[in-house]
């Protein structure tokens, strides 16, 4: 059992590790590195993973975060992004590296300014010596009794090729380890040290492993040792704050004035059914906004396939003189059917419409079955050509006028925006085509 002098980074609690375990010597080197850098312990956060290495934070007089297995990188990322002035050091084993592999790669890719110490003892030491993602091929563990068939993960290469700023591979026996840890902590970007060590409880007895055999394994795998990457990179948080500083202030909400009136004295359910990509939802929204400009309370509920730009696009608009929450069971009072895609989806509900209802559609769909009044509009009869994407608004204008939902003036006022010219042309075409 090692007892290390406390001051100022180690506390006076002795390490709990097995005799000969590398964890204590790496932690001593970390203590030495922190002393070299003379960082304020209050501004250092050690984020420990799970496993024997996950116990490490308890022996330091810094701040500590001991979370879930494999997720230490995510907590460290959150801490560093929220408070860039803090020094954030992750201590994880090869187990945490495996289960948290996605987090490791992505933190390297983003270049989050944290330092990761992998205590790589080639197996799961706390749970009974099972093989990990870094167990060498052929090694015997409690879950590879006939020798490991899997190739070990090259941690440094994995994070290095994905953008890490600093990588180092060595062993717990390296004389310059404290200097390398200090160097990694000082690096502004994502820094990782893959530190191989001996698990004397499991890996050593099962594989007759020694310092020399471990070093031979590293070399035999073709895994380079030493500082493998040290490049000047801006960390993610610094880049984020620089980009944020150039942004305008928070967007103000878009408000809609009430400047017209609508004669509705009861809610009207309006259905618009057309094809995805044909501006069905934006046309429905324009009519909704015209309703709001007329003092109505409007809801708009959209339905479209997950592929977004193919198939149907349906909007259900409720125009009401009083506030109304979305609820089920409404049969439309007015339906605008713009295309075959829309009809395929809306055929059932259009078929249930009452005789007092209104359906506005095009000649190709004139045979649709409904008890409601049908108004067939031929876009070819318009003075100018009507684009496919304008047809929904043309038919909606006709429906709105026929059932006095909202006035043409309110529609025109709601047409403002980047597509004002197209929208106004569609509204005028609707006025011209109104029966």
């Amino acid at each position, binding site marked *: 059992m090692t007892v290390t002098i406390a001051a100022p980074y180690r506390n006076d609690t002795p390490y709990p590790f097995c005799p000969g375990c590398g964890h204590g010597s790496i932690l001593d080197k970390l203590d030495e590195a922190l002393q070299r850098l003379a960082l304020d*312990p*209050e501004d250092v*956060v050690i*984020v420990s993973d799970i496993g024997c290495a996950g116990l490490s*934070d308890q022996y330091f*007089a*810094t*701040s*500590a*975060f*001991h*979370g*879930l297995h494999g*997720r230490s*990188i*995510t*907590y*460290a*990322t*959150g*801490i*560093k*992004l*929220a*408070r860039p*002035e*803090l020094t954030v050091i992750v201590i994880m084993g090869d187990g945490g590296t495996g289960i948290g592999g*996605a*987090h490791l*790669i*992505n933190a390297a890719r983003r270049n989050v300014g944290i330092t990761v110490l992998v205590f790589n003892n080639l197996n799961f030491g706390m749970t009974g010596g099972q093989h990990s993602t870094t167990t060498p091929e052929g090694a015997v563990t409690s879950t590879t009794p006939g020798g490991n068939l899997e190739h070990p993960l090259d941690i440094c290469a994995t994070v290095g090729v994905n953008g890490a700023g600093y990588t180092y591979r060595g062993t717990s026996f390296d004389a310059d380890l404290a200097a390398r840890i200090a160097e990694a902590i000082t690096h502004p970007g994502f820094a990782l040290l893959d530190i191989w060590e001996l698990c004397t409880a499991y890996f050593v007895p099962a594989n007759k492993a020694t310092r020399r055999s471990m070093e031979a394994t590293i070399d035999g795998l073709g895994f380079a040792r030493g500082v493998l990457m040290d490049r000047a990179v801006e960390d993610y948080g610094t880049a984020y704050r620089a*980009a*944020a500083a150039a*942004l305008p*202030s*928070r*967007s103000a*909400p878009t*408000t*809609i*004035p*009430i400047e017209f009136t609508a004669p509705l004295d009861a809610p009207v359910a309006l259905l618009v059914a057309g094809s995805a990509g044909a501006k069905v939802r934006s046309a429905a*929204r324009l009519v*909704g*906004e015209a309703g*709001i400009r007329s003092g*109505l309370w*409007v*809801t*708009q*509920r*959209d339905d479209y396939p*997950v592929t977004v730009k193919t198939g149907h696009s349906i909007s259900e608009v409720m125009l009401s003189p009083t506030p*109304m*929450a*979305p*609820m*089920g*069971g*409404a049969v439309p009072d007015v339906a605008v059917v713009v295309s075959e895609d829309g009809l395929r989806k809306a055929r059932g509900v259009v078929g249930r419409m009452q005789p007092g209802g209104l359906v506005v559609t095009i000649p190709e769909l004139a045979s649709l079955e409904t008890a409601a009044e049908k108004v067939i509009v031929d876009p070819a009869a318009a003075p100018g050509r009507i684009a496919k994407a304008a047809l929904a608004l043309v038919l909606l204008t006709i429906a709105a006028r026929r059932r006095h939902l909202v006035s043409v003036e309110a529609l025109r006022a709601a047409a403002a925006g980047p597509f004002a010219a197209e929208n106004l042309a569609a509204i005028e075409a609707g006025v011209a085509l109104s029966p």
Partner: protein
Amino acid sequence: MREFIDGNTAIVRAALDAGCTFFAGYPITPASSILMAMMRQLPRVGGVAIQGEDEIASIGMCIGATLAGARAMTATSGPGISLYSENIGLAIMGEVPLVIVDVQRLGPSTGGATTVSQGDVQFVRWGTAGGFPIIALAPSTVPEAYHLTVRAFELAERFRCPVFVLTDKELGTTLTTVDSEALVAEPVAARVTGAAGTPYRYQPAAAVAPLHEFGRGTTVRFTGSTHDEAGFITKTLPTVDALNRHLIDKIEANRVEIELVDADLQPGAKTLVVGYGITGGAVRAAVAAARGAGEPISGLVVQSLWPVPESALAVALDGVERVIVPELNPGLYRREIERIAGNRTVIGVERLDGELLSPQQIREAAA
């Protein structure tokens, strides 16, 4: 002035008004527009928003950021809550204030991507190992989505625990007309930092110690393992018992403070309709229609689902013989009502096809 916005937009506005400074999330319909809006707006107010590599990373970043001083929120749907599970437990154990928005969609699994459901009401309560309590609020309208999100931030700070805002596809994405004046709230009080004493305190069990943040002039120990009041891992039996009873009592013993309902009780009515969330709209319409037809009826829209608002329910149940519980799931919250309804008849109205219940369906059950 009025606005035409959906529930997700109201939640984003509430978060910014409540002083949210950190957001991490992963794309999933129908919650994605919260992620997109936070990515756009948060850097403009000095905060940080990040799209995690997955849901696990997203909630993990939120927990880390909170301990470093941020006020954090994340948003997802049911499949994402599945991946949040282990970190929900961590936030409970480490007493981390955190707002989690669940815009529910029909499950199980990928389910009805993307149709409406209320299938996560028990999941958010029991979705992590151990069975310890959380708080969950369920808005039924867009203005409620705003106000209950602000309230969620207050409760998260007050009780140092995850607080869920449970909405759904329809509330989250249906554009709704609102008065701008209805979306205004008092600022949420700033967190007390640099607090004296230990970061955890277990006595009295129902009291909550202030959160200690990293780097505020003292070292702070945080752990998801059983720990003493200083944050050191311990297995000492009385300490572990005190810790776990504190995690329960700080919420259960303060349940009256957390309770929120919209009660519309009619004296002498023998029938009570209890709903929540998006189904609240149909509940209110059914109650209005029944009364219009001369049938006495009471309505209760539950806004604080967890802990179950038992005081408000006791008041609403007084004199009632029959309770109708409409919900978009296989009767999940009905079991809570049955638990406290005594010998009253409890009737469920369920819809499981990804569509909303109608007021008529509720009235038919009441007939």
